[in-house]
């Protein structure tokens, strides 16, 4: 296995390009599918799980899906590689953590625009990832992948309930539309709680960078649909594209403008303090780094600071996370050593791009 190729740069989801990339980090659409005739993963024994893995393997590696696809057998890959894939949003934390001998794998297009997890909660969890607000593209891409796989694989499907998933919360379309947003101004003005409540009233889930329990890390929020049954894929997606996301972008923009109008000095202070700490600290943890990078990113997008550029900031969001940091340093490190290496890396990258 060779993950070296995918550690350079920020990958698709943090590329910082695409429509509305000042607020929308990435768009993701995933489908849950199970093979007909096999027990679901949680009730399958080791042999059955292995059979599923083998049945899927040649199909997900098909040249029709991507010219170059990397296959990562997660049962015999080091924890740090699995963590690296989690940080790049190519596999779930759940799949990374499962006990060592559970047959499971992920296929990743080398440009990281799509990945297929095998033997996660469902036999197949496929996702397409796009920078910025590109949900329509993401849906048509995943639909094409699903069509190609379906030519060779029999998916469990019922007329009444649609695509059958292990957890009934995913049944029907099996679709999860999620948009990762950077909302520092709503956080600073304290309006984020209102926005989150409104989103929840609309049956949307609002989670942090890595799902539950990582709330507001780096002011990054993932908004996704909860219901998957009784509406078409397109209807679910259009809610996001036409109403939910444009509204949240507008709120964030309003909050940014309000900060400039009413709290200009305080805003600049936040941004320049973030710069000062990032370029002078000698010891820094991940959470602090992400939170400071968030303020710096806001400053760059609002043209309040020209000491760095958005590409560098986006890359650092990823490189300061534990597995990426250890990759860059070329060795495994204790958390204490990482905090020192992280501060060094931030200083070097930010000052050299000055």
């Amino acid at each position: 296995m060779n993950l070296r190729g995918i550690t350079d740069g920020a990958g698709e989801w943090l590329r910082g390009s695409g429509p509305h990339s000042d607020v929308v980090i990435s768009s993701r659409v995933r489908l849950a599918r199970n093979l007909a005739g096999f027990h679901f993963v949680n009730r399958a024994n080791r042999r059955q799980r292995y059979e599923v893995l083998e049945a899927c393997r040649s199909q997900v590696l098909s040249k029709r899906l991507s010219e170059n696809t990397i296959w990562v057998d997660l049962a015999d890959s080091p924890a740090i590689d699995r963590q690296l894939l989690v940080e790049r949003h190519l596999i779930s934390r759940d799949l990374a953590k499962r006990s060592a001998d559970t047959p499971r794998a992920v296929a990743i297009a080398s440009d990281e625009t799509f990945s297929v997890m095998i033997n996660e909660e469902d036999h197949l969890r496929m996702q397409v990832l796009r920078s910025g607000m590109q949900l329509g593209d993401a849906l048509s891409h995943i639909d094409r992948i699903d069509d190609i796989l379906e030519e060779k694989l029999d998916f469990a499907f019922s007329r009444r309930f649609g695509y059958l998933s292990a957890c009934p919360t995913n049944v029907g379309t099996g679709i999860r539309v999620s948009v990762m947003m950077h909302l520092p101004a709503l956080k600073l003005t304290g309006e984020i709680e209102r926005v989150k409540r409104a989103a929840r009233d609309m049956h949307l889930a609002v989670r942090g960078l890595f799902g539950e329990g990582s709330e507001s890390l780096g002011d990054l929020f993932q908004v996704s649909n909860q219901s998957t049954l009784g509406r078409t894929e397109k209807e679910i997606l259009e809610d996001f594209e036409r109403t939910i996301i444009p509204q949240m972008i507008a709120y964030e923009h309003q909050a940014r403008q309000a900060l400039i109008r009413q709290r200009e000095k305080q805003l600049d202070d936040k941004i320049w303090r973030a710069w000062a700490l990032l370029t002078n600290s000698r010891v820094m943890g991940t959470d602090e780094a992400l939170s400071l990078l968030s303020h710096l990113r806001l400053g760059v997008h609002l043209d309040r600071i020209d000491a760095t550029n958005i590409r560098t900031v986006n890359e650092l969001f990823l490189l300061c996370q534990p597995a990426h940091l250890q990759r860059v340093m070329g060795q495994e490190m204790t958390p204490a050593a990482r905090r020192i290496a992280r501060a060094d890396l931030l200083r070097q990258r930010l000052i050299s791009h000055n």
Partner: protein
Amino acid sequence: MKYKCDQCDRPATYHAVEIIKGQKIEKHLCDQHAAEDGLGIKSAHAPINELLTNFVKATGETDKPSSALDLTCPDCGLTFSEFRDKSLLGCQSCYTAFEAPLTGLLERAHEGGNHHIGKVPRRGGGAGEQRQLQITRIRKRLNDAVEAEDYELAAQLRDDLSDLEADGGAPA
């Protein structure tokens, strides 16, 4: 990755904010201490667990001997009560075996949705199913149109519907 457990050095996996007598108390605990504290193990499926428990309570099925809890999937052997604990089904046949108790649950989890109207796999689908689905979709749009008082659209959808049903010879 954000907090350490309040009671040991392991990473906290359980997070809660409680308001007691107007005082905000944050709790960050690891799995073990969360269990000891009676907070239970954090599960990604907490909402559906809650739904299930409430659902079973609401229908009073816990008291009856021949309750939904005793249903067993003939294919994988999962019981409804096991499903309630784990909130994961064991195989595709579970959907048939537990159809009755699942229906109400699905409606709650999916904003009233209880019937698939999305994509159909070409292998599993077939022309008959496709037509059925089209009808269901148009019916839903018709319903929405009537609710939105868009009578022009509603009239057109009714025409589409009668065309489709005439084609397939389905009962009106």
